[in-house]
């Protein structure tokens, strides 16, 4: 009997997720042993036709990383969806929109204008912009459509499982693969990571005081960070309490606060709002002015609370355009 076929594909992403697969190191050989890689543009030379040729459901599983911003990414997502029995959103971008999702703070026009006209490194006097269709002697050339906003994979096609993280921690990938191969999978729609927040596995947990009252909020570059004590206790904005565990607190080990790449637990509808609520609760102030003074330590709330999840959040995208925002003025 032939080995189960799997596919890997990337959309709006940085390639880190692909690295993560390679990070399986020698274990990848076992994977290759166990499955037949039917499609993996990054790794080997495949063409879209190779996928189109497959029968529906012929793929045992498809792993898609990256967010969805273009018509081409959406097409590939639909294509793989139809060919795969199990579709897995791989990494923060496909799970929640990821860092590319922060583009939802600006509208399409602003982005194009900046990238093709205003960016300091750009010289483009004719203000040439990429066109979706252009007639040349050889015929019609087309480009994928660049959508108004970024969306998550499950806002595009139905997703069976999510492998969270930026990139997904090797440990989670491993157990996910095992689950797939052995077929003992959790209920559809699950996130393949522990459903308890990061503090649970944080080595610094014992150093967190029971009565934390923050008078000052600091950012990593502003302080010498003590490598032992809880980062929140040091006034650093660590999202550990609001983020799934499963990464072994890797960032904390690197003496950096958690930025929330594994996303919220299953009980939470909007991770950013929850993190915001928890953090605000801990401020040590009752006077409006004093509260504002402390909150000035959060110059960019969206960047802090929704670094990986803006498209997945309730608000999803900025209202109006980000002009004034980019010029640093508030609307």
């Amino acid at each position, binding site marked *: 009997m032939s080995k189960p076929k799997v596919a890997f594909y990337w959309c709006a992403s940085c390639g880190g997720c692909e690295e993560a697969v390679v990070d399986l190191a020698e274990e990848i050989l076992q994977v290759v042993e166990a499955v037949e890689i039917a499609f993996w543009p990054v790794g080997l030379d495949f063409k879209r036709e190779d996928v189109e040729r497959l029968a529906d459901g012929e793929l045992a599983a498809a792993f898609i990383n990256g967010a969805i911003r273009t018509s081409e990414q959406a097409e590939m997502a639909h294509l793989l969806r139809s060919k795969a029995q199990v579709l897995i959103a791989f990494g923060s971008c496909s799970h929640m929109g990821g860092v590319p999702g922060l583009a*939802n*703070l600006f509208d399409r026009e602003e982005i194009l204008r900046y990238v093709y006209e205003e960016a300091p490194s750009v010289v483009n006097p004719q203000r040439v912009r990429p066109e979706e269709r252009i007639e040349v002697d050889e015929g019609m050339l087309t480009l994928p459509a660049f959508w*108004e*906003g970024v*969306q*998550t994979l*499950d*806002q*595009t096609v139905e997703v069976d499982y999510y492998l969270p993280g930026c990139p997904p921690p090797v440990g989670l990938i491993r157990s996910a693969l095992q689950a797939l191969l052995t077929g003992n999978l959790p209920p559809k*729609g699950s996130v393949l990571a522990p*459903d308890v927040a990061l503090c649970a596995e944080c080595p610094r947990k014992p150093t967190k005081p029971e009565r934390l009252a923050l008078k000052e909020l600091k950012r990593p570059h502003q302080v010498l960070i003590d490598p032992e004590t809880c980062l929140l206790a040091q006034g650093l904005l660590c999202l550990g309490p609001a983020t799934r565990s499963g990464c072994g607190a890797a960032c904390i080990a690197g003496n950096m606060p958690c930025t929330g790449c594994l996303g919220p*637990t*299953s*009980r*939470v*509808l*909007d991770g*950013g*709002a*929850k993190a*915001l*609520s928890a*953090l*605000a*609760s801990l*401020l040590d*102030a*009752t006077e*409006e002015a004093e*509260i*504002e003074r402390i*909150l000035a330590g*959060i110059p*960019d*709330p*969206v960047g802090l*609370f929704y670094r990986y999840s803006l498209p997945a*959040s*309730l*608000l*999803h*995208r*900025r*209202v*109006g*355009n*980000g002009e004034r*925002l980019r010029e640093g003025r*508030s*609307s």
Partner: protein
Amino acid sequence: MSERPVEGERSFEPRIVAFFCNWCTYTAADLAGTARMTYAPNIRIIRLMCSGRLDPQFVLAAFRHGADGVLIGGCHPGDCHYQEGNYKALRRYLLLKRLLREMGIEEERLRLEWISASEGDRVQKVANEFTETIRRLGPLRLAPRPGVIRLPVAALPEPSPAAREGALP
């Protein structure tokens, strides 16, 4: 909001969700009723035990599901039935406003008011004022969000099939 169509100004009826604490503001709203103080019908009151129960998720959910404004009502500082819940509400509210600002939503769409049990007239005043403010701002035009908003399934007591799809049939 200059881009708002002129005819819209007349037709637009603000949709406002109000989260009132049981002990002060909700009671004040009852008092406004007993005193027959009529006010704008746009306010939909949801009762919480304390303004401290107000989870910022509720506010965002309200906006996402079509609210043009959200009003939070709690006891006056120092008067909280639960001693200091209203201070927590205040902190969350102030941070939330910063978030809304960055998301391009006018801050005035979120308002926090301290209204004690005896201030029925303030409920009337605030309800009317706030409705007017929102009317002036016009409808909140959130970018449409693709996909279903799934209720945090694990947060439900044993979910019914209907519950799984956040929105009911």
